[in-house]
């Protein structure tokens, strides 16, 4: 009888299976679900503003982009680590220094994470920090101008992934290396000497509370592992920082297999207040290091790059009470502290559980020396001693967790492609929603702060496939917005994003919008080549350099006729936009330019270098539609042979030939 039932079940299964096979033929038609009132929740009426600025990393485009939530509308792309021919960033003479590094000019990077500045653990709307994963750097974007104003390179780092997470009052931005590398004098070593020679470094970058200026305060020399993500403690855990690590196997080849051998890697807890004490006590060691520090000067509209030559380091293997390891299952990615600062959520990306650690228990374990041993000279706290509890089998591949204002956590699951909502205290799973497809990070407005704004969670997905009209092999990235104001998460919007968003933060519009700058005041323009009125427009020769002090105002460029340039000259067009009116940039482009165009904001001066390669007449013009006579906003430059006697001259509106043009 039983056998018969089994065989019947099996037959049934076979039938189902064949139905699946048959269904997989085509046309495959998924069932549908109701969106309910979702559309109205994402709808921002024409002319109305979004509720949140959504500051999104661009991943491989090296940029940061600004969206509105809940509409998902893209407002602006801010070039940070990548050249941007659209506005001349990284091409203009003023911005080239911003991309200088100890490796020379690096025109691209991989921007993964965003950190919005906080005061007392809450958003303050001042700056957005971003990391460069490839050539290790941290950038600061000013939320008044939405412009990259500072880039600091990180010595002794192999790739700045675990960054730019910040402390409660933006005292520090951290930068942990993804790749451990050999540093110092002994860098030409066999790769197989990883365990002996490779080290991981964490930089603590101090941020000046007055003007945001960054400085590497100190570096921690840590064992050769990979640092993935991090979060600062807050509230009761202020003074601590938590980093996820992987490859504690210390593999240097086929990490796909060899870095996944151990059941547990570590969360690294750093007592940075203790590090500060050691520095005060003179325990720091100054070591040689070469790295670039690039700063933007808003008065000269110019970036300046300085190469630094030393950095202060602490060795936690000797100064024992700075760092502690806590075992965490399977290559943790996310390492997120809840709004109270009590709970630290580890997300083992290959695990099917989420461990939640308790700050109080970690402190007790340290006090009681409840260690299971040491790893590379660093004490390892017993897993159970630090553990608040585990969310068992919440999904597959937990990556990253953020929090709402009601004590709930939202964890992204890459492998099972979903967001799971759970209660931080009870560890109970409350809800789950699918994402489309394979979510990486997620973002709750204010989610990493002490005071989440809640309301939404955005999924930043890694796979797009059939979500939008296809555009060949390369597709846009897909994000989804979920309303989390109720008990159940509700999908309200699916929107494409540019680059590859890794992490993003959102901040209420009213915290940023009132400060948004409209123009640069001309009287504050201290650019050495600015022409602050048409009367100051001129052309000067300095040897083989020709400097054009050019002005732009609706609807002409001054000068617009230039002669006397010779082959072999370098011509510098210093274009000052004389407008003092919001949203009237002027552009500048010249035929044959081997670099880019310029977009010059009202009151700003920017410089394009141009080296003519042939003689002749070269047109230039304004590229940003500025008025009804924008198309007339143009000029000519004449290039003569190297030995020519054509005198240097320039003009605008001067009619020399009375038989043509307006002079007729």
């Amino acid at each position, binding site marked *: 009888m*039983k*056998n018969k*039932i*089994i065989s019947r*079940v*099996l*037959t*049934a*299964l*076979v*039938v*189902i*299976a*064949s*139905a*699946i*096979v*048959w*269904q*997989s033929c*085509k*046309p*495959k*038609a*998924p*069932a*549908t*679900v*109701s*969106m*309910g*009132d*979702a*559309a*109205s929740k994402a709808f921002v009426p024409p002319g109305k503003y979004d509720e949140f600025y959504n500051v999104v990393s661009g991943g491989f485009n090296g940029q940061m982009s600004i969206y509105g939530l809940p509409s998902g509308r893209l407002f602006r792309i801010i070039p940070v680590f990548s050249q941007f021919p659209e506005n001349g960033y990284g091409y203009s003479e003023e911005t080239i220094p911003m991309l200088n590094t100890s490796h020379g000019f690096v025109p691209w990077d991989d921007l993964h994470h965003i950190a919005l500045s906080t005061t007392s653990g809450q958003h303050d709307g001042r700056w957005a920090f971003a990391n460069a994963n490839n050539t290790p750097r941290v950038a600061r974007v000013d939320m008044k101008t939405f412009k990259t104003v500072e880039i600091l390179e990180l010595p002794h780092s192999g790739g700045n992934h675990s960054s730019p997470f910040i402390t409660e009052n933006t005292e520090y931005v951290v930068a942990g290396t993804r790749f451990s590398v050999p540093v110092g004098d002994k860098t030409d070593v066999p790769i197989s000497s990883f365990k002996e020679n490779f080290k991981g470094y964490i930089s603590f970058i101090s941020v000046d509370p007055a003007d945001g200026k960054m400085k590497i305060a100190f570096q921690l020399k840590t064992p050769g592992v990979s640092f993935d993500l991090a979060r600062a403690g807050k509230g009761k855990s202020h003074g601590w920082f938590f980093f996820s690590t992987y490859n504690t196997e210390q593999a240097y080849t*086929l990490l*796909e*297999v060899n870095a*996944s051998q151990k*059941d547990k890697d570590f969360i690294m807890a750093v007592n940075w207040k203790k590090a500060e004490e050691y520095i005060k006590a003179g325990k720091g060691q100054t070591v040689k290091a070469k790295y670039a520090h690039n700063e933007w000067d808003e008065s000269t509209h110019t970036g300046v790059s300085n190469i630094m030559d030393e950095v202060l380091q602490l060795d936690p293997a000797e100064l024992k009470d700075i760092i502690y390891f806590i075992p965490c299952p*399977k290559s943790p990615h996310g390492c997120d502290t809840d709004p109270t600062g009590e709970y630290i959520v580890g997300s083992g990306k*290959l*695990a*099917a*559980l989420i461990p939640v650690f308790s700050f109080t228990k970690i402190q007790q374990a340290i006090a009681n020396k409840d260690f299971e041993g040491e790893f590379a000279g660093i004490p390892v706290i017993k897993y159970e001693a630090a553990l608040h509890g585990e969310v068992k*089998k919440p999904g*597959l*591949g937990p990556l990253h967790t953020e929090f709402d204002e009601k004590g709930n956590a939202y964890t992204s699951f*890459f*492998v*099972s*492609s979903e967001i799971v909502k759970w209660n931080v205290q009870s560890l109970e799973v409350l809800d789950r929603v*699918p994402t*489309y*497809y*394979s979510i990486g990070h997620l973002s709750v407005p204010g989610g990493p702060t002490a005071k989440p704004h809640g309301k939404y969670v955005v999924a930043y997905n*890694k*796979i797009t*496939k*059939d979500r939008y009209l296809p555009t060949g092999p390369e597709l846009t990235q897909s994000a989804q917005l979920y309303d989390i104001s109720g008990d159940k998460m509700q999908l309200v919007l699916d929107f494409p994003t540019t680059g590859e968003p890794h992490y993003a933060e959102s901040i209420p519009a009213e915290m940023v919008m009132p400060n948004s700058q409209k123009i640069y005041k001309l009287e504050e323009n201290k650019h050495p080549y600015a022409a602050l009125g048409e009367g100051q427009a001129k052309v000067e020769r300095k040897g083989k350099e020709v400097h054009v002090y050019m002005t732009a105002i609706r609807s002409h460029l001054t000068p617009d006729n230039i002669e006397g340039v010779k082959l072999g000259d370098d011509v510098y067009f210093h274009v000052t936009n004389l407008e003092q009116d919001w949203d009237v940039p002027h552009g500048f482009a010249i035929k044959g330019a081997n670099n880019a165009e310029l977009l010059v904001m009202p009151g700003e001066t920017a410089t394009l270098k141009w080296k003519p390669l042939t003689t002749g007449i070269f047109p230039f013009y304004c590229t940003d539609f500025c008025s009804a006579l924008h198309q007339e906003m143009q000029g000519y430059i004449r290039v003569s042979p190297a030995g020519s006697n054509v005198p240097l001259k320039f003009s605008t509106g001067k009619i020399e030939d009375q038989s043509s043009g307006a002079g007729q």
Partner: protein
Amino acid sequence: MKKYILILAVFAMACGQQTATTETAAVTEVPAGGQSNVKDDDSQQDVVKIAVNSPDHTTLVAALKAAEYVDALSNAGPFTVFAPTNAAFDKLPAGTLETLTKPENKEQLRTILEYHVYVGVLTETMIQDGMKLNQVSLDNVTLGKKDGKITVNGANVLGSARGSNGIVYIIDTVLLPPDNK
């Protein structure tokens, strides 16, 4: 027999439906489901499609479906899937499968299926005798490799197939996680 026809009818209906979005005053219908629904006949097959297209794995596919595990294995992976044949399921003690496919035992079925999945692509050349893999179920399996013959927890690997998001090893015995042994 009636029951089977009904099941077929349900799937037939699902197949006949269009992905059209019907809009009414306030309600929008949108496609449901995950990556397994993506229409794509051009790309290399993923590990689920490999199983679906194998006549020897109909029971496994049905079990994946019952455990709602098809979408998970259609994602980017990377996966190593140990895929028991129909004959392997037939070797289970009488009643096992019947019990497991009951809706109330979905979690248990999932655990068993998760014991067959490793996150990571382990090609044959990477496999070493005695190697342990921590499976999605959180339990370990032990691989064997002797004279080029691969085993997992003693089950024989009968063949392998490379999918777009992972590798499938066909095995002759269902793997049961330690708690279920």
